[in-house]
């Protein structure tokens, strides 16, 4: 699948997967927990929607958990991410508080955006998450800007820019990659290629076979990996993050994955087959991660059940927190349009 990065020294000779060689047992268990949290956040969100507790729409990332978590493994809170409309997973991966996420989803003052933003705008700047985005491709130049800041200010921070396969056909994608390279900025472009932008397959919308092939046009490394394989994702993105940190400039990583649910709540799935969905469901990234941990004796099955139970409890508590939260005050609706209020 495409070009690959040079394999790092941390990979042991006896075929141990990258993640096992690179990360401690605690780090790996924490990663699995985040994957469960994402899955259960999405299920909780879907259930709340079905029960009429929230309005609007939502874009669920069930099936894409390895891509979100694997891509954030070597990031600290100083490092930035930009996210997308399908951003709940990125948010969790970057360490967000599930309660404040749910509160935002419920439109409450206690939510991350104080009820102003909703599902498509959840952000947590305190953890380096510059936000989901309602505009396809909107985050790409912003990520380049964050990388420019890091370089000029000498913070050493790296920005990981998440975007979908659909976004790679926006001008913003091409302009962003070009500038990132021209200015040699510490940014990693992570394309989550789930094969469709809404109903339109990459075959019908994109001139190249792999999105990573576009890296050639911007003279940066590009690699395509199995986005449902946590270790493969972490290996590719970690290497790109390291390059960025060393001042070697931007990279493009393409995580090939799949969204199990429809694009949003109005999707009738008329553009793909049941068989295709079932085939991808059989490649569940969470089951694969759990197997990785048991196979390498990182965690027992009981421990894994415990991690899952923990995630379930956290989500239940988050929903309770969100339900109890107060609505924003109507009198304050124009607050925060500007930093310093102006008379209008």
């Amino acid at each position, binding site marked *: 699948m495409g070009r690959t990065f040079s394999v790092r020294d941390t990979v042991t000779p006896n075929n141990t997967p990258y993640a096992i060689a690179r990360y401690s047992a605690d780090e790996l268990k924490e990663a699995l927990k985040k994957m469960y949290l994402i899955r259960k956040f999405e299920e909780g969100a879907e259930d709340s929607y079905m029960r009429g507790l929230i309005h609007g729409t939502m874009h669920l990332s069930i099936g894409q958990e390895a891509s979100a978590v694997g891509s954030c493994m070597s990031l600290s809170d100083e490092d930035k991410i930009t996210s997308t409309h399908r951003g709940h997973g990125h948010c969790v991966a970057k360490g967000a508080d599930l309660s404040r996420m749910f509160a935002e989803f419920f439109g409450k003052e206690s939510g991350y955006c104080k*009820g102003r933003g909703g599902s498509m705008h959840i952000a947590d700047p305190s953890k380096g998450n510059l936000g989901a985005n309602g*505009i396809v491709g909107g985050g790409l130049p912003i990520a380049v800007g964050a990388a420019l800041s890091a370089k000029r200010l000498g913070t050493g921070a790296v920005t990981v820019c998440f975007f979908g396969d659909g976004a790679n056909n926006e001008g913003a994608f091409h302009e962003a990659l070009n500038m990132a390279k021209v200015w040699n900025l510490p940014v990693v472009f992570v394309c989550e290629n789930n094969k469709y*932008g809404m*109903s*339109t397959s990459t075959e019908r*919308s994109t001139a190249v076979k792999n999105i990573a092939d576009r890296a050639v046009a911007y003279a940066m490394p590009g690699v395509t990996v199995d986005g449902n394989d946590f270790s493969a994702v972490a290996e590719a993105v970690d290497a790109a993050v390291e390059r960025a940190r060393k001042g070697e400039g931007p990279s493009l990583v393409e995580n090939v994955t799949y969204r199990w649910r429809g694009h949003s709540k109005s999707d009738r799935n*008329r553009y793909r087959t049941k068989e295709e969905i079932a085939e991808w469901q059989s490649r569940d990234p969470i089951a694969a991660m759990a197997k990785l941990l048991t196979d390498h004796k990182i965690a027992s099955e009981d421990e894994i059940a415990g991690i899952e139970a923990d995630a379930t409890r956290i989500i239940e508590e988050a929903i309770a927190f969100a339900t109890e939260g107060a609505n924003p005050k109507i009198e304050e609706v124009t607050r925060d*349009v500007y930093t310093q209020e102006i008379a209008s």
Partner: protein
Amino acid sequence: MHTKTDLRELSYAEAIREAMDIAMAQDERVILMGEDIGVYGGAFGVTGDLIEKYGMDRVMDTPISELGGAGVAVGAAMTGLRPIFEFQFSDFATLGMEQIVNQAAKIRYMLGGAVSVPVVMRFPSGSGTGAAAQHSQSLEAWTAHVPGLKVVQPATPADAKGLLLAALEDPDPVMIYEHKILYKMKGHVPEGHYTTPIGKAAVMREGKDLTIVATAIMVHKALDAAETLATEGIDAEVIDLRTIRPMDRDTVLASVRKTGRLVCVYEAVKTLGVGAEVSAMVAESDAFDYLDAPIIRLGGAECPIPYNPELEKAVVPQVPDILEAARNLAKGRI
């Protein structure tokens, strides 16, 4: 919102689809372009199953490329096709603004009249769906500010069909702002081909005490308010502007001369918008002498559209806001 009759009814979305269907059947040059308008049927189901009838070559799913897509439509319109380009949400037209404002609007003029750009663009707009700040805007005043474009905002299913067919007959670029909340609204729609004239407002309800000039979904809120006002002895005239460029001066001014009071209500942010233009039109004309009270504009609050449903409602004019303004005006309180 409407009275039940034997007349054929369609939803606003169905009426638009019927217009596209009629146009495509009559004229091979008409093609549809947009994101997910094929098998998906459009984000709001407007194109529906037209792909089954006309195929992928005439119902074209574009990549997610608003600037490029709009520009392809402009180029095709200059050279023999009649594209109808759908922005999935009007908000995403901001990405295509270059081709709309610098190209489509000006090409004919810059070329000294040597070519026309008969492109039609559709913009699903407005709030009320819980989709927050980047999916709920009413930016029609942006394009209405640009000479070379024509800008319409149908409020009824019949006008949605008639204005689209008129737009296709027009040799110049026509921007159609469709309020998303109206897509499901039903109303009588005549069969077959007909056009609603671009540049003509419609008097939806006659009245003598005050004039309410409204656009899009606000037309229905104004009509609701007028019913209540009638029970209080206030006789409101409701005008559906329908086109905001070119604006129907005559209809608005005649009404103001008759009533002497004007409320202008629209969903877009209140300042620097349609209401300012309507007010200035009155202020600059003889109708000004007929005013018995200051003009009132009711528009969106000075903020993006928030997500929380209560906040979302609070930032755009609602029926009680229209009632309050009308009562104050009619009772000479301001």
